[in-house]
């Protein structure tokens, strides 16, 4: 079933269409949830609530070309994830002075990132503090500007920028550490 037909059928509560939508997009949406959530259980909660909301609101979806359904589902899931994070009051921002020195070491290169398994990379993102994680996801994966992120999260732009700086430093450190551990392990062998 094509995207548009699938969305229309889901809006009409067609059970077959609902299942097809789930089979087609649940993997991608679960991946998104894992990036935003602190752990797997929280990601499953977000995914569950997302699908409930998707099936309830899919009539509002307007098809704008191939891929637009996937984009709409992703945005809805991200919005719900942000909402969840804020509801649980675990979303914290840390103000960093604009002239604060750079706190992270050397940045990993492209090859270093490729050597880290995806599951581990997801784990690294999960381990970021909620505020860092949300900003990092929105900036890197959703490609939002700091202005958009600030509006979405209810923080100011400087705060968004500082959160990202910290998140980036943390991710770089984790990747570098993983690479070092990997190299040390190889040397010991």
């Amino acid at each position, binding site marked *: 079933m094509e995207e548009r037909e699938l969305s229309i059928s889901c809006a009409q509560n067609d059970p077959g269409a609902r299942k097809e939508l789930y089979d087609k997009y649940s993997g991608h949406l679960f991946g998104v949830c894992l990036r935003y959530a602190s752990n797997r259980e929280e990601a499953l909660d977000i995914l569950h609530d997302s699908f409930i909301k998707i099936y309830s609101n899919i009539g509002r979806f307007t098809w704008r*070309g191939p891929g637009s359904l996937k984009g709409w589902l992703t945005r809805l899931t991200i919005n719900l994830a942000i909402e969840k994070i804020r509801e649980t009051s675990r979303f914290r921002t840390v103000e960093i002075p604009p002239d604060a020195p750079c706190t992270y070491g050397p940045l990993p290169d492209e090859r270093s990132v490729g050597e880290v398994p*995806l599951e581990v990379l997801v784990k690294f993102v999960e381990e970021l503090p909620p505020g860092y994680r949300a900003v990092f996801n929105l*900036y890197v994966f959703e490609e939002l500007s700091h202005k958009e992120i600030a509006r979405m999260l209810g923080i100011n732009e400087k705060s968004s920028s500082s959160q990202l700086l910290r998140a980036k430093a943390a991710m770089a450190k984790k990747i570098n550490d993983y690479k070092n551990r990997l190299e040390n392990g190889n040397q010991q062998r």
Partner: protein
Amino acid sequence: MEINRDEKWLVKLKDSLGNWQEPAPADFWSNLQKDMPQAGAAGETGGRRPARYLYWTAVAAAVLLAAFLFVQHQEEALPVTPGTKIAQNEPVPEAEQPLGTKTAQNEPVPVAEQHLDTKTTQNEPVPVAEQPSGTKTVQNEPVPVAEQILGTKTTQNEPVPVAEQPSGTKTAQNEPGTEPQLLKETIREALYLAEEKPERKKWIAFSAGNGAFSAPSGFLKGESSVYPVQDDMVMGNMAASGDEDHEEWGGGSGTPELDLQQGQILGITNLGIEENRKVVMVGGSNFYSFRSKEVYRSYKYSHRQPVRLGVSFAMEVTGRLFLESGLTYEYLGSTMKGNGETLHQNLHYLGVPLKANIYFSKGDRFSLYAGAGFLLERCVYGTIGGERINLSHWQKSLSASIGAQIFLGGHAYLYLEPGASRYLGMDEEVISMQKGYMIKTLHSEEPFGITISGGVRILF
């Protein structure tokens, strides 16, 4: 440190995790189903969604509407007994009415027919009607002097017959929308302009004094931008003279008084007014001339194919319904032949359409839909025989169509819509003689039409 989104390691991270998928646990779907909005008790969206049969109902309604418009058109096109039509549209001239009779209030004697020779042929001078004395003219509303039509244009060698207001008839208040009313508005507007706008008054009184003045057409054209109301009229000024055997026809309310005098009327023969025009006196010394309805009706019209261009935008209100609006331009061109002349009528309309369409087959690339809508248009510029006219007429139409559209990309769709449209309120009498001219268009003569439209639609 400046954070660069394009740093290679971040790009690599985005590429790796951006499309990363992980299957949900096996029992996730079954748990989700328990909490899912049930069919038949759908969530907010499902509840708002019309059932599939409604889409087909919409299509059927559009087809029925088109059929109804067509049938209605056919019924209107049935031949009408000439006498009946004349009785409806053309009040009996007063000259034919028995004196002392009353004119029904709902059927006032049109001003155009109150003048003295409604149909004067050049070889047949109409005898002057005499006004019985002792009769009473009842006017519920003071009729401005300007409404009194003195006579039609005749050649200089033929004396203009003088008809007089049949007394004893009861002139009721003019019904709005009738020809007299339209003329009344025209003259009132002219008087208003003359009174309120000094610069306009200046030229109306251009040739004050004894004698007569006929504004040359070039003069009128030159003034058309300043005096749009009178563009189709020849205007002038004529001094009162002759016997004082006059009767006051109104006045009051600041309206200039017209003395109906034989001297004036005879003076019209020297005005040099073009043939096929009637004369209306204003303010006792000013006059207007225009083509009469009879003259307009004697033209043979040939209409060009209408051309309509437009810009439209559409917005999907729901997954099935989208509304469309925009701005249209339409050109209606006609050629009028008759009375020894050929005139060109050019009308330019701007309109605003409003249309609702419902998909009955909606795919990613190709969709079919049916719709119905309303189009309101206004003539923004028009000429007859090169003279500017000023229409105060709204052109309204209903339409129904079935369309197909192909997705081009972004918000753009290529569409093709065959349909039918029906113009409303296009009776000749409704749009005729507005401000001294009568308009006939393809839409007034053929209110029902089949249309095929196409183009690129911007759908939001």
